[in-house]
């Protein structure tokens, strides 16, 4: 049986990733993660039902898993040396949280003999530490090391250009949003609309969108560091490099723990964190 595990938030991007990948698999495991500070993780169930209606009830297994201990370990392991080496990059919570989710997903794959993983990562937020291309590359290498193939099917999809301030105030025509849109540029919302899963082409930022995925405010601290402190002085490329250097170090450390888990299972250190 060909199985796929998906890091599933319930939002437009991860739902689109599932919709694109599902036809190639016999069973799809939708993994939603919750932890202290992430609210309404159960909202992801809204779009799980839509996916079941489209592709069949028996095709999906939806699990909500807590990653409190793992997230804490990823964020705070060897804290003082990490603080000395990476400074305020330790505040880039989104990347660290995403790394904790991927580690948990990899462990889930090893436990259930799943060979494929995907998520809804998208390249349209330049300063979002969890969506940096080089970080995705490092994650791919981590999965490959354990015989799992990871990809981000919606990474190159466009961002809706009618979700800005002017559009929310009913003045989208002033910005010319969407007027000269190329045919080849498709958003995840448009793809889901085309498949008949979503009722509208763009749900991002709407009240409906908020009711179908978890909410987390910890990106605020990360964004203050990125947009007020670091990027104005050193630039975006250096910021991305700083993030990736930190995550690479964390991946190296946790790769060793996953290896130990695959050998010792319940007697391993990682087992206590999951």
């Amino acid at each position, binding site marked *: 049986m060909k199985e796929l595990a998906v890091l599933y938030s319930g939002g437009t991007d991860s739902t689109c990733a599932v919709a694109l990948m599902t036809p190639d698999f016999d069973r799809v495991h939708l993994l939603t993660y919750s932890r*202290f*500070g992430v609210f309404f993780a159960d909202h992801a169930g809204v779009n799980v039902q839509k996916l079941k209606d489209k592709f069949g009830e028996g095709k999906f297994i939806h699990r909500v898993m807590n990653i409190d201990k793992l997230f804490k370990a990823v964020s705070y392991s060897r804290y003082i040396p990490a603080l000395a080496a990476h400074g305020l990059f330790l505040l880039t919570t989104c990347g660290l949280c995403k790394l904790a989710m991927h580690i948990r997903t990899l462990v889930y794959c090893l436990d259930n003999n799943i060979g494929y993983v995907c998520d809804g990562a998208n390249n349209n937020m330049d300063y979002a530490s969890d969506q940096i291309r080089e970080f995705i590359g490092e994650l791919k290498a981590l999965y490959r090391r354990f015989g799992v193939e990871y990809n981000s099917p919606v990474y190159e999809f466009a961002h809706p250009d009618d979700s800005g301030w002017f559009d929310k105030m009913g003045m989208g025509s002033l910005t010319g949003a969407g007027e000269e849109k190329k045919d080849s540029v498709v958003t995840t919302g448009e793809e889901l609309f085309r498949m008949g899963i979503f009722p509208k082409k763009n749900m991002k930022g709407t009240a409906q969108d908020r009711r179908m995925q978890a909410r987390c405010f910890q990106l605020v*601290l990360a964004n*203050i*560091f990125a947009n007020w*402190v670091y990027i104005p002085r050193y630039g975006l490329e250096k910021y991305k490099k700083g993030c990736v250097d930190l995550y690479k170090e964390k991946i190296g450390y946790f790769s060793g723990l996953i290896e130990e888990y695959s050998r010792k299972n319940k007697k391993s250190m990682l087992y206590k964190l999951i």
Partner: protein
Amino acid sequence: MKRMLGLLICFIGVLLPWRARVIFSELLGWIAQAMTGAYFLLAKFIIKSLSGSKAGVRL
């Protein structure tokens, strides 16, 4: 000024243990949300008033 304020917030954040950091971020998030909401409503009110006055006011 913005950078100094940012640095101050970040230095506090980086020293906090994980649950306290989450609560601190949550607090910052709600402040940002309130400011964004106020800005949005104000801008909408100004635009509405301007479009209303365009039709009614005679100079």
